[in-house]
């Protein structure tokens, strides 16, 4: 067990932000959704391309298969001084979308992929725990931003590997909205431990298993990779 006193939550959060930074990456994922009544949906595949810096985080989520998913692309832009903005692109139009909305009836949410809670000002250690035999420190991240439906996140972080094995997201009333758990981790080329398979559990609604089956840690962002963020209309829902 980790002694929570020895963990500096603010320093750990800063380390998490730093570790998430990338000049370009690509991850292709298979997503399987099971309803609360165990009904399984047809799996789908998406590709996520990202560029994460301290000033700006950009992600492009492109549907791969089946056809219904393939026709949709989402791009999210988050900066330090503005709320996250999402543009959805289909074959014939670009439109603004909600960063907190689940994609393709799954537990996949663009805002979650950015893990922005590590940048929130309020970070504290509230205890220690184990997850699947991995000892971890419980870090509470809080925000007072009123427009944000998530106001508190409790992460179970293995401080030696800086991997959050379990992340619980709560609303303002401290209702648990979803839990993200890492089922399988792998070492990246840089030696960092990263999630390879995740489960997003939305209580009473669904269980989504996300498996990264291919990727590129040195993806070259092209000038037009995030072009839909510029070409899209500003605020059409």
């Amino acid at each position: 067990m980790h002694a929570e006193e020895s963990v500096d939550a603010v320093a750990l959060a800063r380390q998490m932000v730093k570790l998430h930074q990338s000049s370009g990456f690509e991850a292709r994922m298979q997503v399987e959704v099971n309803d609360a009544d165990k009904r399984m949906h047809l799996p789908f595949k998406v590709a996520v391309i990202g560029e994460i810096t301290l000033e700006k985080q950009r992600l492009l989520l492109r549907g791969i298969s089946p056809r219904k998913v393939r026709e949709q692309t989402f791009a999210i832009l988050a900066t330090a001084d503005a709320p996250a903005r999402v543009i959805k692109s289909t074959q014939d139009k670009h439109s603004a979308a909600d960063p907190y909305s689940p994609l393709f009836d799954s537990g996949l949410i663009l805002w979650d992929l950015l893990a922005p809670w590590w940048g929130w000002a309020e970070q504290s250690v509230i205890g220690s725990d184990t997850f699947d035999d991995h000892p971890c420190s419980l870090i509470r991240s809080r925000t007072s931003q009123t427009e944000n439906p998530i106001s508190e996140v409790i992460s179970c972080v293995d401080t030696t590997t800086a991997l959050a094995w379990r992340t619980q997201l709560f609303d303002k009333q401290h209702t648990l909205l979803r839990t993200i758990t890492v089922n399988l981790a792998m070492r990246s080329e840089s030696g960092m431990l990263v999630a390879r398979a995740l489960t997003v559990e939305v209580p009473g609604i669904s269980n989504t298993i996300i498996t990264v089956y291919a990727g590129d840690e040195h993806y070259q962002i092209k000038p037009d990779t995030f072009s839909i963020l510029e070409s899209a209309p500003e605020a059409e829902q």
Partner: protein
Amino acid sequence: MNLLRFAYDNLTRRPARTTLTMTAISLGIAAIVALTAIAWGFEASWQKANDARGTDLIVTRLASENTMPSPFIAEKVRPALVNLPHVRQVVGLLSEMLTVSYDAPPMFVFGWEFNSYLWEHLQLLEGRWPESRNEPVIVIGTLAAELLHKKTGDMIEIEGVEMPVVGIFQSSALVENGALILTLQLVQQITDKTGKVNVLNLQLDSSASDSDIANIKQQVRDTLPGYTAITSGELVSQNAVVRISKAMSNATILIASLVGALVVFNTMLMSISERTREIGLLLALGWHPRTVIKLIVSESAMLTFAGGIIGIILGVLLTRGLEHIELMRGKIDAVFSFPFLLGVLALSIVLGIFGGLYPAIKAARTRPSQALRQE
């Protein structure tokens, strides 16, 4: 009476115990045979694929512990390689393990440079090869065709892109028979890895000697930091899956050997304690203690010899059975060599000798006067 005949009769006198002991030994030996053959076969299949292609050296990124080395931009490395002495061709390869049908296991999708030597060893059974570097078509191995239930003219969707199967081929390597092959440019496009490859294959001219190969390796180390030139055998032995399967087979050999020796030890110990009077009588009749040791060790060696033979047969049958299970098809290409099977049999006999040695010595030390008094 012949000592071996006597030992044999002692074993058949207690058929239930003999059968149980032999079963335990044969299961251990079967596990050793199956796991080792699978581990060796996995390694051999990858090496066979590289050797069949005619690749002499592979240039890849350092410290790659994934199944395939992580992709890199080919043109950053190629110019330095083409001018090295003895290098005839430098050919890029991009590979991914992908699910192309939810009814079939994930399969290798290879992207090979169009018109390169990589294609030459494949035997086209029906259809044709791709006709240009950008033609959106697929050729598939016989095993892949069987698993996907596809024939020439059928469509296959890879990462959201639908393409027709234009040819079915056969390779001497199982890995390739279970794979889908496209041109490199096409796989780069589909997987969004423009210009990237996992490895660069080097084909050298026929005059290249071992020292020339060593020179090329050294030059790559010196001029291309972060990259390494290795032979296909070295690449395969560095593969994490090969390492894991070999470690598993070694662990199985160790555990099965320990369990086997303990089973024999226990059986022979029980046997001699039941036969104390009999052993005492033999010693009283003038048997030399060394002859008693020989008798007990012969019994245990016979047990493990028979268990070894049954285990080897069981292991071979088990592996062949696994090869035909739908989930395993195309993944197992077990290798059984005669020296290996002979080695396993020798191991089981050695286990018998060691397992029976202490009980045999204990039996030989029995005092006839005490033994004959025992009920």
